[in-house]
């Protein structure tokens, strides 16, 4: 069976019927976006892998409860986001460090868990400049409240519509708009030296 051409909903239905290939395809489609979101929420590679892994396992083991009236992406992002927010609340880690894991005990551990941005097609100078800019933006996002952070990442990194963000975060549309306005306001203030 060619899974590449199947829609998310079709794959979810196949997965609910215990089709292993459907699970693998859904995982292939969502492992990067889900991991990116979780990683930017906790800024610790090992922890992000654990949380993303747990989120996928929860979602896949409950795939029969997925309601196809909603988008599969919203459903799985909702599970991953709730799981990560729960973790942050338990640990009371409202902000995260760009410089590595908050649990790092040595400078070496910190460096190992630091955000690594892979090079793109840019020339070395552009790459370094963008990396510095990206680092500062990442740092500013890391200082936002978890809810604001989720909203900004879903909107501007994952490119979700407001209505989908509202479904993922289980919040009214107006609240999502307010979160985004405030989050961007805080980011603009923090990054004023870069964008003015």
């Amino acid at each position, binding site marked *: 069976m060619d899974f590449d051409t199947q829609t998310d909903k079709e794959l979810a239905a196949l997965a609910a019927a215990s089709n292993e290939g459907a*699970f693998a395809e859904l995982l292939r489609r969502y492992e990067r976006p889900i991991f990116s979101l979780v990683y930017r929420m906790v800024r610790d590679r090992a922890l*992000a892998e654990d949380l993303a892994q747990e989120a*996928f396992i929860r979602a896949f083991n409950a795939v029969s409860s997925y309601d196809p009236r909603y988008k599969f992406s919203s459903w799985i992002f909702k599970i991953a986001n709730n799981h990560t927010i729960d973790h942050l609340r338990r640990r009371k880690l409202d902000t995260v460090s760009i410089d590595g894991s908050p649990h790092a005990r040595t400078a070496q551990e910190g460096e190992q868990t630091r955000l690594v941005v892979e090079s793109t097609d840019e020339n070395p100078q552009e790459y370094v400049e*963008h990396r510095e800019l*990206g680092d500062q933006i990442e740092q500013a*996002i890391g200082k936002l409240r978890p809810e604001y952070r989720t909203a900004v990442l879903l909107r501007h990194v994952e490119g979700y519509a407001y209505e989908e963000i509202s479904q993922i975060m289980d919040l009214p549309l107006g609240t999502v708009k307010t979160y985004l306005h405030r989050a961007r306001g805080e980011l*603009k203030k923090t990054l004023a030296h870069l964008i003015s």
Partner: protein
Amino acid sequence: MAPKRPRTHLTAERIQAFLDDALSRDDRAEVQEHATFCGRCHAELEAWQFLYSELGGLPELSPAPNFRDRVLAGLDTALPAAQAAQRRFGWLRRRAVRAAEHLDPERLQDYVEGLLPARQMARVSAHLEACGGCRGEEEQWRSLIQGIEKLPVMAPSRAFASHVMGQIRIGRRVRPVAARTTLGHALTRALAWAGRLIPRTQKAWAVISGIALTPATVVALLAYAVFSNPLVTPEGMASFFWWRISGGATALWGLLADGLVESGITFYAYSFLDLLAGAPAVAAMVAVSFAAATSLSGWVLYRNLMTTHTVDGNYARTSI
């Protein structure tokens, strides 16, 4: 028939009401008709229209610092005149202020994201063309959003997919597997809950240590008080406790043995064995049932405790 010629010219108030869209439909039609045929009123209307368009682009001006005091000082006598002026020119001020106000950040963000209705988008565009401050703000919002959108997508480690696939249940027809996972999940939750009880600050550790040491301290003090008596020695205490414990154990055993004999269990067991000895077919059935039950329970234990999903190159095998 020639159109009816108007008898009086349009007043300034009527023309302003017309431009403010404050007239009824009939009055509005009447003014339009009048202005079509009356050259003087037509010219007057055009002059007012020009004034309106010019006022729309006026910046907001600040009065002199003592302006407010001077107004308040002359308030009693000047009030009726001020009210009249307010009535007459209020619309002018409202228009000028509206045109001079900067766009609020939310509106600018929505504009940059293209979320406003077409008409509002056009209005904001027009304002941005005229207002350098808002244009700078708009560029900053655009730059911020583009910066965030350029953040890269992160990839997990290569083993991530196999870890996930190795732990999902594919094919849940085997009930005990579900039971095992539920048990594991409950255990994980219990451990997570217990983990929350571990103190995380020095103060909390000091309090916990103090509470934990209190009974130990009391026992130590009591032991000291007891053994400080010259008649009480450790050997004597050990002999005393041994005597009490062995006596208690003997009494308990006697109680249990008496209870067993008096309850009739021995009699029933003997009768059952006697029955089996007299009927070999029943004995064989009991033996087979016992063996089957033992095998079944052994298999259930094996499925729940011993087997794991085998992870090969292509994720987990189906366990049906």
